Every structure is written in C-alpha cells, then in structure tokens.
C-alpha cells in the first residue's frame, strides 16, 4: 500500500508523518490524565453524557426498542389477518396500528438505527476522539427518544395517526381526519426529522473533517463512504418532507388550502413532496447497511473488498439516481406517459448500483474464504433476501405491471424483502460483528445461529406468500377480508412466519441480556478479525494516540499498529490543552489542520431536547401558550449551550505529537463550525427549492386564477434592503478579522443592522401582500405565498435572535479579532437569509407576471 500522497492539500508537510511512530517512553501520568478528562459522569449525571461510546450505544438501543415495539404491532396485524373476518383488532385500531407500524419502522427505527450506528462507529473508524459535535448528537438522541416515546404512546390513548404512513391528503385533512391523530404524525415526525438532520450534519462534518492523518479519501473506510452519502441524502431529501408536513399542518390548523382541490390546491402536491423524500428514504436506510455489509463481508471472508471503488461509485450513483425515482409510487395516479417513462427508466437504473454491490460482495466471498459465523450468516442471508426484493422491485418499476401490483400485498412483500434484506439483516450482522468493540463479552455464536435461522425462515414464510396473495387480489391496508377467496392459507402462513421471525428476535434479546456488557474498562476486542481502526485498543478517549493511516485496512497492512497506538507513539498521545480535544484534518487528504477543543458533559442539551419535545407535543394537543413557552426555553437552552463555544484556548498552538505544532482555533472552511453551518443552510435551501417547486406546481393547476402581485414599489424597497443586509453580513466578518484596530463594535453593529434590515424588508413584503388583498385561506396561491413568506419570517426571526446573541457576546467582551467564529457563522446565516429573501421576492413578484 502506498504512503500518504505527495501533493499537499493544505500546505502541511506530509514528510512529517515519517516522525511516527515516535521512539521512547511516554511521560508517566499522560494516560491517567486522558482517562480523567474523558471519564464519564457518574450516578444520576450519566444523563449528561455526550461521549459517542455512550450516546452511540443508547442510540442503537433506543432504535432497537422501537424495532421491537413496531414489530409487536406487526404481530398484532398478522394475528388479525390470520383468519377472515377476525376480531383481534377492530377497524379503527387496525388502521392506527398499521399506520404506526410503518411510521415507527421508517422514522423511529430504520433511519435512527443507521444514524446511531454511525455515531457509535465512525469516531473509532476514523481515528477521532469523538464526533465533532458530541453535544449535538446527544441532543439528537434525547430529542428522538423523548419525542419517539411520546409519539408511540399516542397509540395507548387511541390518538395515534390512522391515515397510513404516507398520510395522503385529503384523507388526512381536517374534513376527513378531524381528531388530533394526524397532528401527532405531522408534528411528531417533523420533530424526528430535526433529530435526523442534526445527526446527518454531525456525520458529514465528522467524516470530512475528523479523520486520522493520512486517511485520504482513497483510504476512507467503505462504511464511512456509505455514511457520507447517507448523510448527504438526508440533507437533500428530508427538507421535502419537512415542507410537506408543515404545509399539511398549516392546512389543518389554519385552513390554508395547499391540498384542497375545491380551493385550487391539489392532493398530488403532497404525493410529489412526500415521495421526493420517501423514495430516497429507502436508499437512505439501505446505504449505511450496505456500508456495513461491505465492511463485514471482507472481514468474515478474510480478504479486501473486491471492487472497492466500484462500490463507492455505486453508493454515489444510488444517491443521485434515487432522487429521480420518487414518482414510481405514483404510476397509478394518471400521470402523463412521458414522465411515467422517465421515472420507470430511473427506477430500473437505480437497481444497477445495487447489482454492482451484490456482485462485489460475491466476488469478495469468492476471493477469500467465508466463515459461517453469525455475522457471516446474516450477510449471506441479507444478500439473498435483498436480491429477491430487488428483483421484485424491478418488476414493480415496470409501469404496466405496477398497475396490477400497486397497493397490493405484492408490494408489501417486495418492500419487506428489500428492507429486511437490505437493512435489518445487515444491521443484525453489524450488531453481532461490532458488539465485541463495545462490550466486554461478544454475543453468543450458538444463540446467534438460532437468531439467524429463525429470522431467515420466518421472513420467507411471512413474506413469500404475500407476493401470491397480492396477485390474488388482496389490497394493502385492509383490516379484514371475507372468507372463501382462497386468501386464507397464504395469510395463515404469513402469520405463522411473522411469529417465527419474532422468535428469532426474542432469542436475540435474550442474547443481548446475557452477553452485552458495555461501558466496561475492557472490551472483547477483534473477535472477527476486521481490518479497520475501530479494532484498535480503546478507552473512552478512543485510541490512546491517533495513528497515521496508510492503508484501507490499516490493521491488516500496518505492522504493530495496535501496539504503537496503545503506547502513545502517534498523534495526540496526551491532552496538550488539558481538555477534551480531537484532530481536525483536511477533507480530501486528511492532513492535520488544527486541534479542536471538545465540549464536556452538561445538562443544557438534555433540557433543550426536553423543551423541543415539549414544543411539538404541546402544539399537537393545541396548548399553544405552553408550547410557545417551551419553544422559547428550548432556544434559551441552545443559546446557553452555544455560550460555552468559541472561546480561544490560552495556548494558540500546541504540540500534537513529535514536535508538530497545530493551532487550537480555526475559522472559515478549515473549521468544523463553518462546515456545519453551510450544511445547515443547504437544508434551508432545499426547503426553499421545494417551496419553489410547490409554487410553480400550484400555479400550473390554477393559471387563470393566479392574481397579480402587489406593486413594484414594495418590491424595490424590500429587494434593496435585503441586498444591503446580505452585504453587511458579509462585511461584518471581514471587518472583524482584517481590521482589528476597529475593535469588535463595528462588526457587531453591522450584524445588528443586517438583522434589522432583513426584518424591515420582510415587514415591507408582508404588508404589501396583505394590502394587495391576497388571503391565505381562500386560494392555493394565497396559501403558498404566505407559506413562503412564513419560511422567510422564520429565518428572519432566527437571524434576529442570532444578532442579539452577538450583541450579548459583545457586551461580555466575547467578540474580538482573535475569536471571529461566532460573527462569521452568524454572518453566513444572515447572508443566506438575505439570499433566500431575494429568491422569494423574485419568484412571487416576478413569476409568472414577469413572463408576460
């Protein structure tokens, strides 16, 4: 394997890598210091823990809890459908149960589970001490757990959503779903999305910025590639469902008719927005699992992955193509033939990268020697089941076949083959494979075999007959059926299979109870002989020192790596700043850039999560005052948590090992904060892009009724002020850094003025629309115009809070030329808000009026 690349990305002299491993003994007490600094909070304070070794385990555990809960719902459904006209679940309960099964499996199990796997594994795989924003992932976890449990409990009060996990309006509008059941879905899921996006930002920045030195992209572990594409897809796809849920909630709460055909709305808009998220969602779930497969197959076959680059390209291709397939859920809605053809072609094309991966795994198995241990069995089972699901997926991508199969049990069978083969089995392989990394004992191989064979047999028993019963005419989402239609036997077998599958899961739970012992001083170690950095000896501080990576499988190829790392002979053997810290490296070549001080445990992110959950749940039960109060408290907690950040260390540079000095403070694209802010703004931009789509879509349905916008005077005024706000936001950072002699106040004033101009421009625009007589309730145009205005208003409000936050920090003396990060990031946000305002103005004032 080659050494680090010659050309430098950052100016860092990669010849310095040759100083490692260092010689000689490390100073006494260095390790004890690391242990003291990274030690977890004790007793009741465990709740404030932020280290990924803990949060990752909690996170996976919570996801598996929801897997079991949603699985119990599945068993209830199977019990009901075992016999014709069965009386296990009444109609309304069944409708709630199937809605919750899909929703919980997708939103509370699948996405969080793979995200949790990333939180748990990535720092170890990348050689980082922790993820770059540990408090953010802890917040994401708590928000998800609290929100998820509260959402699930709606079932016990008969208040669970009952419109299907796809929530199609108008069935979910207030006319046909007057209860708060649908609101539970809309707000609960909106809330979980925030958690998913927070996790995705963490993963993107973590993979790009906190890799071990020398781990250039060509040595990035395949799992990390998968997680990177996964997180990128979340950033692109989730905004669409955030917008969709917001619009439907606005329609339900305020009567804005986005989806009401009688007032110019269109139920199809929901389907486009939902499936633009909903189909990539499947690949979002699948990719990390494929990454785990591509890691475990080489380990159990004891040979490097064949076609590593083809698999990476397959991940990227999956990510791209999956955004062109959403409408294959809508082949029966009467779409025009041309678009049907395109979506059909894309849906078939997306199976190509899957084929590449499958044959790369088979080739890897062929080039090595497979061991039939539990992870090995699960990857083989996954491969077979996933291929079967993929093939029925190709069938369903054929439009004319889909006209028959759509919304029947054939599709139920297809999607369970894909999701169980593509995600659940790889997840179980991952749990068995990586447990020894976290637990003092590995899971039992003997029980593991039972788990696998029961789950494998159970899933075929349960889902194979469903293909047939679908073609026999059984539609999805039916709570009962008449006898004498020949559906009895397939359904009875399916029910039996579901319980066999559940028996496998039960044995897995028993295995976990008997053998899973996390958080101890020792872990079981590299039982399955993997080649990645996660198998280096670790403590809570991750590895004792951060190695230089020279291979895709450093443990296989770099001699004595484990020994040298544990002896502190690589980067960061101690804590030069005396606190938690990790190395930040460049995105392509992973050259060391600076040292990132890391936060310590505190309660603020937990409170922020509690109050965020409170905001959404109180909103659901229509306790508006309490909800707003809870929201304000959440914001206050987040600001308090941010208050700790952006304080320069006393030492401007420190020795990170072998005499290499790195800065302890960074701004701009080399800093993690900049990447996180930019990623967050991409989320905002995607919501805006989907809003623009919705605007044009609704216009195309109401061209005659579209009213002209207000006069150009207000357009010019709002445009000029927004533009000025953007320029000021950009100048503020410039002023602070380049012209230190001015002190902080000019920059603070520019930020404040920028925020004020944004607010003024928004007020001018809003007043003009209101004066023009367009009402949000009366037409789809009114609804979409005011929703885009509201989105801008939301950003303006956040901008105002941020500007005041900068002012407060200025008053405390925390704004200075040596710590420009806060001003820079707030400036970025304000600049984006200005850009978004200009897009909104241009769209709603000039389209379509400006065309004529």
């Amino acid at each position: 394997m080659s050494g680090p690349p010659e050309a430098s990305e950052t100016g860092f002299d990669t010849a310095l890598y040759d100083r490692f491993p260092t010689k000689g003994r490390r100073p006494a007490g260095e390790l004890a210091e690391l242990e003291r600094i990274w030690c977890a909070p004790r007793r009741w304070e465990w709740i404030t823990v932020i280290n990924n070794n803990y949060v990752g385990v909690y996170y996976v555990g919570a996801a598996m809890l929801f897997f079991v809960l949603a699985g119990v719902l599945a068993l209830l459904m199977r019990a009901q459908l075992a016999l014709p006209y069965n009386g296990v679940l009444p109609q309304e309960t069944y409708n709630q149960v199937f809605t919750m099964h899909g929703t919980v499996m997708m939103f509370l199990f699948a996405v969080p589970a793979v995200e949790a796997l990333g939180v748990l594994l990535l720092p170890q795989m990348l050689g980082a001490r922790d993820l770059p924003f540990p408090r953010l992932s802890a917040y994401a976890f708590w928000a998800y757990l609290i929100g998820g449990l509260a959402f699930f409990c709606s079932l016990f009060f008969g208040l669970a959503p009952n419109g299907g996990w796809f929530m199609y309006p108008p069935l979910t509008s207030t006319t046909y779903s007057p209860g708060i059941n649908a609101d539970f879905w809309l707000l609960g899921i909106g809330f979980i999305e925030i958690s998913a996006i927070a996790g995705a930002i963490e993963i993107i920045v973590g993979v790009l910025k906190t890799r071990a030195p020398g781990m250039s992209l060509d040595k990035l572990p395949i799992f990390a590639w998968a997680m990177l594409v996964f997180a990128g897809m979340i950033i692109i796809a989730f905004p669409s469902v955030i917008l969709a849920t917001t619009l439907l909630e606005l329609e339900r709460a305020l009567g804005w008719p986005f989806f009401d055909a009688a007032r110019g709305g269109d139920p199809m808009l929901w389907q486009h927005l939902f499936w633009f998220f909903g189909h990539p969602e499947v690949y979002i779930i699948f990719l990390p699992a494929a990454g785990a497969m591509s890691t475990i197959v080489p380990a159990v076959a004891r040979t490097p992955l064949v076609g590593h680059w083809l698999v990476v390209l397959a991940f990227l291709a999956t990510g791209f193509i999956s955004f062109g397939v959403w409408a294959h859920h809508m082949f029966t809605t009467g779409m025009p033939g041309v678009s049907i053809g395109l979506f059909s072609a894309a849906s078939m094309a997306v199976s190509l990268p899957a084929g590449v991966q499958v044959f790369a795994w088979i080739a890897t198995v062929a080039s090595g020697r497979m061991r039939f241990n539990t992870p090995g069995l699960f990857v083989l089972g996954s491969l077979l089941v996933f291929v079967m699901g993929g093939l029925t997926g190709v069938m369903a991508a054929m439009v004319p076949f889909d006209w028959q199969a759509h919304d029947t049990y054939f599709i139920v069978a297809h999607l369970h083959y894909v999701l169980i083969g593509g995600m659940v089995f790889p997840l179980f392989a991952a749990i068995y494979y990586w447990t020894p990394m976290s637990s003092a004992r590995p899971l039992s191989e003997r029980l593991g075999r039972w788990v696998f064979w029961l789950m494998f047999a159970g899933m075929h028993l349960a889902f194979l007959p469903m293909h047939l019963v679908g073609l026999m005419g059984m539609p999805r989402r039916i709570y009962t059926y008449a006898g004498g239609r020949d559906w009895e036997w397939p359904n009875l077998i399916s029910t039996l299979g579901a319980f066999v599958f559940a028996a496998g899961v039960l044995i897995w739970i028993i295995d976990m109870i008997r053998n899973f012992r996390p958080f101890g001083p020792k872990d079981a170690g590299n039982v399955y002989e993997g080649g990645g950095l996660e198998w280096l000896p670790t403590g809570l501080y991750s590895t004792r020192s951060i190695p230089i990576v020279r291979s895709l499988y450093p443990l296989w190829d770099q001699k004595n790596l484990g020994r040298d790392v544990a002896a502190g002979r690589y980067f960061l053997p101690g804590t030069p700043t005396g606190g938690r810290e990790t190395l930040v490296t460049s995105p392509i070549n992973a050259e060391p850039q600076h040292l990132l001080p890391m936060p310590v445990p505190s309660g603020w992110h937990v409170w922020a999560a509690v109050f965020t959950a409170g905001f959404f749940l109180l909103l659901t039960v229509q306790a508006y005052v309490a909800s707003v109060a809870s929201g304000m408290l959440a914001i206050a907690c987040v600001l308090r948590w941010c208050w700790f950040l952006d304080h320069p260390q006393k030492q401007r540079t420190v020795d990170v090992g072998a005499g290499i000095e790195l800065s302890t403070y960074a701004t701009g694209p080399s800093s993690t904060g900049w990447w996180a802010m930019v990623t967050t703004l991409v989320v905002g931009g995607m919501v805006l892009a989907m809003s623009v789509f919705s605007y044009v879509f609704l216009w195309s349905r109401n061209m005659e009724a579209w009213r002209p916008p207000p006069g150009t005077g207000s357009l010019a005024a709002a445009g000029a002020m927004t533009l000025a706000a953007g320029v000021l936001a950009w100048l503020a950072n410039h002023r602070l850094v380049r012209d230190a002699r001015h002190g902080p106040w000019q920059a603070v004033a520019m930020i404040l003025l920028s925020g004020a101009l944004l607010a003024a421009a928004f007020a001018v625009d809003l007043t003009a629309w209101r004066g023009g007589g367009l009402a949000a309730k009366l037409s789809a145009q009114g609804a979409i115009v005011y929703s885009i205005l509201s989105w801008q208003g939301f950003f303006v409000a956040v901008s105002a809070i941020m500007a005041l936050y900068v002012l407060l920090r200025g008053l405390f003396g925390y704004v200075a030329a040596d710590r420009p990060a806060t001003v820079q990031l707030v400036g970025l946000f304000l600049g984006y808000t200005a850009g978004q305002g200009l897009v909104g103005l241009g769209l709603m004032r000039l389209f379509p009026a400006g065309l004529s």
Partner: protein
Amino acid sequence: MQTDAPPAHDSFKGWPPPAMDPAGPFAAPLNSLTWGLLAVVATVLAVVVVALAIALFAPRAWRRRLGGERLVWVAGVAFPVVVLSALLAWGLSLTHRMSEPPRPGEERIRVTGEMWWWRVAYLDAGGAEAFQDANEIHIPTGRPVALELESTDVIHSLWIPRLNGKLDMIPGRRNILRVQADKPGEYGAQCAEFCGGPHALMALVVVAHAPADYEAWKARQAAPAAPSPNQAAGKAVFDRAGCGACHAIRGTDANGLAGPDLTHVGARRTLGAGVLPNNAGTMAGWIGDSQAIKPGNRMPAYPVLKGRELREVATYLEGLK
C-alpha cells in the same frame, strides 16, 4: 360476524389469481408482461444463487475465476444493463394508452369514489348523466369502455384486475380507465387506495353483457322505479324512517343524493359495496344494523325499526328490480 362468512359474490375469488387471469385486451398484455418478468426474475435469481454457491463452496480454481472485478463488471453492470433495457422497452410500449380523452361514440361511464362505495353514472354521447346506479358497473362486451374516474372526498383507486390495472380517483382530477371484456361475465373489483375506516370493505362487481343485452339493461335502468302496489307498507316504512333524505328512488319523492341511488336496488348483486349478497334477509339486516356489518360506513343503524318493519322495507326495496 362469523369468521367463515363467504364473499358476497362469486366474482370475488382469489384463484386463479385475477391479476393473472385476463378477460380482455387491456389486461392481457399485463399478464404476458407479468409472466415475462417472472421468468427474468427467476433467471437472475438463479444466476445469483449459483454465483454465490460457487463463491462459497467451489474448489479454489473456480472461486478464483469469480473473485475479481471482472465479475462485478460482467454480472453487476453489463448483464443488468442489457436485461433492464430490453424490459424497459417492452414495458414502455404498453404504457402509452393512459388518460386519452373519450373518443366519439365510445361508451362513457363516470365512476365516482365515495367513502366507502361507488357512484356510477351512465353518460350519454354529450357527456350528460343519463341515470345513476351504484356499486356495479355494467359494460357491453367486445368494445372499449371509458370509465371516467373521479372523487369528491378522498383518494380512491379502482382496480378490476381481470380487465385492466388500477387507476386512482383523485379529487379535482379526472382519470380515464379503459376496460374491455371479451365475453359476458362478472368481474370482481375493489378499492385499492387506502381511503380510511372501512376501506377494506369497498368492492364492486363489473358485469359485462352482450351488446344487445346491455342496451336492454340500460333501458330498464333508465326507467323510474316500478314498485308493485302491494308493497305500500314497505314504502311507508321507507318514508317514515327518512331514508329518502339520503337515497333517491326515481319515480317516487325520495330524492336524496348522499347515498346510493336505490331505483333498481333489487337488481343488484351485492349490498354495502360488495359486502353482502343481495336478498331480502341481508337487506333487512343491513338496514337494521349496517354498522355491525361494515363499521364506520355512513349509513346509521336503525334499531328503532322493528322486525316486521324491516321485513316490509326490505321486501319493498328488493322489489325494485
């Protein structure tokens, strides 16, 4: 309700699988495609299984042949590109017929999805409604019929697997589904899009008549109801209970629009949108407590009606042939 209750009508059968038992020229190519796809899928699955078996168990020399990137290029890229392109071309050649507007002279029937039944209106050549029926679609054999699919409440989807694939009924839109039956017969159909509550119990029967029989049927249906005079007691119950507020019986003063038109309800094959066979006994049971039979449906139960009244009104309605 007893768990072994049979389906309301013989056309609701699962074997042979109706999606693979075409009865007309629109469903036939879908069936050929299904078989073609099944063959392709079985072949590819066999290839994967054989490759995997070799990779796992074959002697080293065999395994070495598979253990390189060539396998990925050949089996993972080239092979699927060829197979998928061919399939796509076949699939798209069958796709173009959607949503063409009705042609002149074509038989037009407007089917409106309601929660949880089907309003069926037969249109004249100008597109005006000639008469209404419910939960049954009657078509002539041997020629295409344009079903104009609409909904006024939520999204439904009409699926008559033996005559064509399914197509959604979406508020604010109109989709055209063409069906054709080659032979007279009865074909089961149901709602395929989840539409809330008793979505599971929303079926209908499509009846194909020879062309002459179809015209005769239409003439009968277009005529007002002709109750025999000795059923005045049943009609009195009907009027007293306020049934006419929701149901129309053409030729009487019952003119409600919310529920199914009952002008010729006695001639229908099923009750409750394909839930019960249609006879005086089931009719009485349905009127007395339809909520026990089809929970959540929009018709209230009538516990106030006594057994004798139920029998009278059921007999009256069954007489409306």
